[in-house]
Structure formats: structure tokens, C-alpha cells
């Protein structure tokens, strides 16, 4: 197979950036999309041109490092698939493919296709955990967790933090990422003690960095782990409730 790649090149955050066109020849349909970029990069280095910088690591769809807008779609055309797991058999021979970095105000471009997603870490720092110091845990089976609850928590916890949800969203919102972490923890009995403070703090930190959700559902369609936007609804419910509960917990509420 052969392809024409139009790839976004940007020397640094301050650079304006532009598209460059490259030919990718002798591509096998067994190759992954990132392997095509590897081959293009080897060609560029041979020609004395700087290779395309892109984030990647595990190449098995779990570390969340990679993420490209491929023909305008976050992670490309295959549902439930991260860029590294996308294989060339999903494309038409001879196709022109446009490759861009994540486009979102909260994810500034670092170089070429590399973006800064540290805003996600800030959201987790705001409460995406259960506060339990090492050593203070009780015997694990003391606390039965209904299978359905555990499964639902796992559905949410499957998020790999790649940022496709934000990149796909017309508002650049991070509701799916945030809701997935909040609901993973809020669903579990272990997560109840901090449920309301967690929800309020994480949602409000999210809003410092990201746009607002208007339920386009693009996030769910782009998510490589197909995380349901139901979790956003649960998060919104918990957020509304948190506003009253948190006041009550601190003794400032109207109803005791």
C-alpha cells in the first residue's frame, strides 16, 4: 500500500506551525499507524530532515501516550482503538491522510504532534484518589463489593488518560475524563468518605482548564476504551448534590 501523509509540523509552542506532505510507500496492511510514522521518520533522517516528533510508548493501547487527529478524528476511524492499535488495513490504498496533534486550548502543542496534557494530572491531584495511607487498610474481604458495582467502577476506571475526549469535543471539555475518574471512586464503598469533596474539587479544577460540556457525545465516540457518557450524568448529579452536602458537612448548610 502507499499513502500521502499531510503532517502538522510546529517547531515549538511559539511557532505558527504548518502542514508538510510526505509519501509513505511500501506500507504493509499489517503495519500500525505509528509504524508508518516510524518509517517516514527513518526516511526523513536519511534525507537529513528532522523527524516528526510524536508521543508514544506502550504501543498496545493502554499507556495513553499516543494520540493523533487522523483525518479530523481523534485516534482515527476505528471505534474503541488508540492510534497505536490502528492498523493500515483500515485505510484505502493510495489515500491522503491528514495527521494533526490534539487540538484543545488546554493541551498546548509542545512540538509537532506532541502536546502538554498535564492539566489532567491537576484534575487527579484535586481529588482523584481515596485517601488511605499505606498500612492503614483493613483485610480486603472485610468489605464485600457487589459484582455489578465493581464491574461498573472498572468500566469507568478503564480510562487511559489519552485526551481523545477533549480533542474530539467541539468545546474542548474534559467531562468524560473527569467523570470516569470520579465515578470509578464514587461508585465504590471505599470511595464514599470523600465522595462529595472529591466531586466538587475535581469538577471545579476541571473548569479552570477546560471548556464546558454541551452533550455532543463526540467524546464517547472517540474514546479508545468506549467509556460511556452516562458517567457524565452521574457526575453532574453528584456535583449538584455535593454543593449542598458539603455545606452540611461543614456545618454551614441550611438544613441539619
Amino acid at each position: 500500500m502507499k499513502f500521502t501523509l499531510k503532517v502538522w509540523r510546529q517547531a515549538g509552542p511559539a511557532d505558527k506551525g504548518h502542514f508538510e506532505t510526505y509519501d509513505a510507500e511500501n506500507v504493509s496492511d499489517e503495519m500500525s499507524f505509528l509504524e508508518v510514522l516510524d518509517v517516514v521518520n527513518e526516511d526523513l533522517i536519511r534525507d537529513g530532515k528532522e523527524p516528526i516528533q510524536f508521543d508514544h510508548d506502550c504501543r498496545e493501547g493502554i499507556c495513553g501516550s499516543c494520540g493523533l487527529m487522523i483525518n479530523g478524528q481523534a485516534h482515527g476511524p476505528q471505534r474503541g482503538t488508540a492510534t497505536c492499535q490502528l492498523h493500515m488495513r483500515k485505510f484505502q490504498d493510495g489515500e491522503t491522510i491528514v495527521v494533526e496533534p490534539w487540538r484543545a486550548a488546554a493541551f498546548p502543542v509542545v512540538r509537532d504532534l506532541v502536546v502538554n496534557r498535564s492539566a489532567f494530572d491537576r484534575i487527579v491531584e484535586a481529588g482523584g484518589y481515596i485517601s488511605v495511607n499505606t498500612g492503614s487498610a483493613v483485610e480486603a474481604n472485610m468489605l464485600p463489593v457487589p459484582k455489578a458495582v465493581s464491574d461498573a467502577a472498572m468500566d469507568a476506571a478503564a480510562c487511559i488518560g489519552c485526551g481523545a475526549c477533549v480533542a474530539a469535543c467541539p468545546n474542548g471539555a474534559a467531562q468524560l475524563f473527569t467523570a470516569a475518574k470520579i465515578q470509578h471512586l464514587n461508585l465504590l464503598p471505599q470511595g464514599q468518605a470523600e465522595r462529595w469533596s472529591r466531586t466538587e474539587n475535581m469538577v471545579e479544577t476541571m473548569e479552570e482548564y477546560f471548556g464546558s460540556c454541551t452533550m455532543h457525545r463526540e467524546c464517547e465516540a472517540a474514546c479508545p476504551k468506549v467509556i460511556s457518557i452516562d458517567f457524565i450524568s452521574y457526575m453532574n448529579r453528584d456535583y449538584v448534590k455535593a454543593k449542598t452536602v458539603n455545606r452540611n458537612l461543614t456545618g454551614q448548610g441550611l438544613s441539619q
Partner: protein
Amino acid sequence: MTPVTLDSHIPDGPIAEKWESHRFNMRLVNPANKRRFEVIVVGTGLAGASAAATMAELGYRVKVFTFHDSPRRAHSIAAQGGINAAKNYQNDGDSHFRLFYDTVKGGDFRSREANVYRLAQVSVDIIDQCVAQGVPFAREYGGMLENRSFGGVQVSRTFYARGQTGQQLLLGAYQALMRQVSLGNVELHPRTEMLDLVTVDGRATGVVVRDLITGEITSHSGHAVVLATGGYGNVYYLSTNAKKSNATAAWRAHKKGALFANACYTQIHPTCIPASDEFQSKLTLMSESLRNDGRIWVPKDPEDTRPADQIPEDDRDYYLERQYPSFGNLVPRDVASRAAKRQVDTGRGVGPKKNGVYLDFAEAIARLGHDVIEERYGNLFEMYERITGEDPYRMPMRIYPATHYTMGGLWVDYNLMSNVPGLFVLGEANFSDHGANRLGASALMQGLADGYFILPYTIGDYLAGLLGQPAVPTSHEAFVEAQRGVEDQVRQFLSIGGNRSPDDFHRELGKIVWDKIGMERDRAGLEQALRDIPALKQEFYRDLRVLGTGDTVNDSLEKAARVADFFELAELMARDALHREESCGGHFRVEHQYEDGEAKRDDENFSYVGAWEWTGPDTPQVLHKEELEFEHVHLATRSYR
């Protein structure tokens, strides 16, 4: 350099009481004094993140470095199958002693008894801690934790979260770490790579790092340095490791005096997707847990070209079940890998390149139903289909062994401290617990044991001795010199101006290592490797091409430094493999096997840890031996028949 002494510091007393009494005997640092100590942690996988979080909870000031953009991306995240713990929830006869015994036996009697026993003891605490953090382990309908079994054992002690156990455990540790970041107890440096260890008067006092965005090279000092930087499987180029996993931090520590032990013990995982073309950038593992329900076979006739589902039972050879009736498809990884290699080598391989064997779920699907199999392995089946374009619910998977884990690593004592005082090494980066072969679901256990429950105690004993001493300032000559060395190396890579990319060299190196120091080794091949590797290394320093500059994101520059270290490490692997005239676990010397092809150990002459001391770039490392003593496990030929 101070002369090397190898003292494992194993506490006295009965094996079951060693850790307990050691914890009592170690010195403590009182809470007010803990904040006077600064500890550097490099790496944020299971071991690094759990250690950093726990030390910060205790009150130490912690600085954390990772080359990833977020700590959550460390390669522990890719572990699929599960984590072992001797909870005996299944009432099937598990115990501390059985987990200990299985691990020592699985490691082919080349690990330290006291370390492994402690690992088995703390395994149960790990599960408690992780559940409390909200790790969504698989549950029974009654709400209790579920277990499955793994290779090399006959009990069900593996806890799991679908096929994403590593991810969920790492997120637990990452979240605990981020909580400490938000509390101001941890200073986090993402996209920052350690490029040298700094020692003053023989003690580890800090690190030199490079900011991967700006290229800035800086020094950081601490009272102790903790390396949790993973294994060196990528020396093979093609492996199941993440692309950026590398040995650089550990290797630079080795060059600063830390001994590197058992470099030849590498693990080839039996169930990976076979390579499909020459552009392949990495190999993908299919969890060993699949061997619980999948049956491995090849056609009896090498010429058989029928699709798998049209080959009748009588024409199939379920060779593991035939050769190892008591463990069947659940033999340990090294045994399963070599058995697959033999099938492919004798022409019975399957698939377009005849480079795999079948892993068949037809019987399990008929017995348990499609839904149960989907529940257990759904995400693995999807991953397989995405990569190969084949549906494993209808067609058997094709699998073949690939490099997966390295048991060797920096030498550490019972306290996880290397021979360099103040340098602690955790997780896959150390050599300690798995002997010559690691059992499935034990890497996660070891990483978290080291980080949550062992280092936080043992580091206190070291730091207590430094009370009142400030950390060595980064203006010290040792820091200045180390930093200059790193800057020089960056300049060197950028200025060679040759023709070949770092990846090009890495691929060629990987092929040598796979062919000569892979699943089977022999004297002639190893000697050849010891000629080929230095020759290629010379070529590397003559013909390397790294474009661009050092003051921005430059992937080639990062790779160049890692490949440079892989050359030296590969040489050590060959030297270690050559000197170890026996077969054990992942180290299989063709000259040392029984008539049936099983590994032939030599306990009389090789029952020791081979720890190598760096003596300079132009002289081979010097071997130091730590004799292994077995008081509780009877040394026997491993049999899984």
C-alpha cells in the same frame, strides 16, 4: 573507588520471623526528623510510585523524576494478567510457604530464600492496600474477591482486574502519589530523564537529569536515591516492553559503582503475537492467563495447510499436555517458550510465516459459553483481533515467545540497597526475587512489595545514620563533573554526523542479542556476540546520525543515549551467559541439557548470584559471587511433568 563487598545482610532467625525481627531491629527516624531528609525517586511505575507515595506519607521530602509526560504512563500499566498473593481465599492450600516455595522453584533455585519469603508475607498486605485505594479487582457475585490460577502453580492465588490489572494497580499508586503532590510532599518532574548518578565518598548523593522539553541539564541532590526504572528487555529491540523502556538509569548507576547481577537471566514470554513484517516496532503480549482456558497445539504433520478448525483432533498435537501431564498448558514461562520454539524449529509452526503455535479456545467456549470467555478475556481478544485482523472466538490465536521481562538487574541486599550506600533499587530494576525465571503475576507483586512495604522501612535505617547531615550541595565537584559528562555526551551524539539513525543501530543490535543471547545460548554464539557487539558499538560512535538540536524535544537524541547503554549491557549479558556453564530458568545453554531437552542446572558450581563490577570502558567487568544458601527448599530438578 572503594573495594566491593557483597553482604546480603540477611537477618538471623527462622525464615518466617526474619522480616518481623528485622523491622524491630532497624533504626527509626522520628516524625519530626523525617522532613529533614530528601529522597530522590527515579521512575513512576508500580515500585517507584508506591515508594514515593509511601515515603511522602511518612513525612520524607520526595523528589520524583519520570521521562513520561505523566507518572501514570509507566510501563507497569501494560501488565495484563494479575497479581499473586497468598491469601488462600480459595481454600485450596495456599500459604506464605507455598507462594515462597513456588517462587523459588519457579526461579529455578537461583533466588535468595529470605527475600522471597518476605515477598510472600507482604503479598497479602498489598491486596488489602490496593482494595482500600479502590482498585476494582474482579469479584464473585457475593462481593468477595475472585482469583484465577497462573503458570507454574497449582493453586488459584492471582487477583485481577479484567485484563488490565497493571493499569489498575498503577493508577492506584499514581493516585496515591498525586495526592502527595497536591499536599506538597512530593515534587514531581515529568518529562525529565535521569542521565547520571552522583556519588560522593562512595555514597549516592544525587542525580543529573535532562529536561526532555527544553534540553536543560540539571543536578539534584538528596540523602538517598531510589531507582525504580524497570528492566532492560528492549536490549532485544523487539520485545513486549514499551518503546521507551530502557536501562540507562540503572546502567549509569552501574558505571558509578553499583554491581549488575545475573544479566543473562532474561524471560521470554510464551504467549505473544508473532511478528508479521520487518517494520514491526514491538511485540504484543497476550496475557498468560489465557493459558487457563486456551489449549496450545500444532498440527502433527508439518505439511498440514488446512485452516485450524478443519484439522481433526487426531491430527493435532497438544504438545504441552502430552509432555507435561500434571501442569499441562500451565507450565512456567521458560518451559512453555522453549517447547514452542522446538515446534517451530521442527517445521510445525502455523500461520503465514509458520512462526507461531495455536492457542485454542474452542473447547473452553463450548464448555463455558461465549459470554464467560468474553467476560474473562474480552479485551485481550479484541486486542488480538485489532492487531491480526482475525477473530479468536472463531479461529485459534497464533502465539510465539517474545522477550518480556528481565530477572537480572542491579544487585541489592536484603534492604534493597545496592553496594553503593544510599542507592536503593526496586522492582524490575533490581535482581532480587525471581531467580532465573519469574512466575506469572509476580512482577506486580514484587514492584508493590518493594515500594509500599519494604523500602519505606529499610530506607529509614539508612537515613537514621545521616541525621544532622545536610544533603551534599549540587555545587560539589562531583555534581559539576557528572553534569559536564552528560553535557559532553549530548554534544557528542549531535556532532557525529554519520549516516545511520539510533533505531537502525538498535535493530541490528537487537538481532544479535536475540540470535545469540535469546531463548537458547551456546559458547560459540556467545563468543561471536562478544566480537559483534563491540564492533557494532564502534560503528555506532562513528556513523550515528542525530539531527536537530539539544534544546528541544528530540526523540533521536533520547534514543541515542539509550542505545549507547544497551551496547554495553548486551556485552555484559553475553559475558554473564558465557561464564554461567549451566542451564537454569531463562538462561538455557545448549551444552547443558538432559536428553529430553530439559535444563540441566549445576548447583555445585553455579548456585550463586553473579554480580559484575564495572572497571572502565576498556576492561571487562569483574565478577563477584554471592553464594545462595537453601535451608528451606530442597534443591531439586524442576519437574512440571
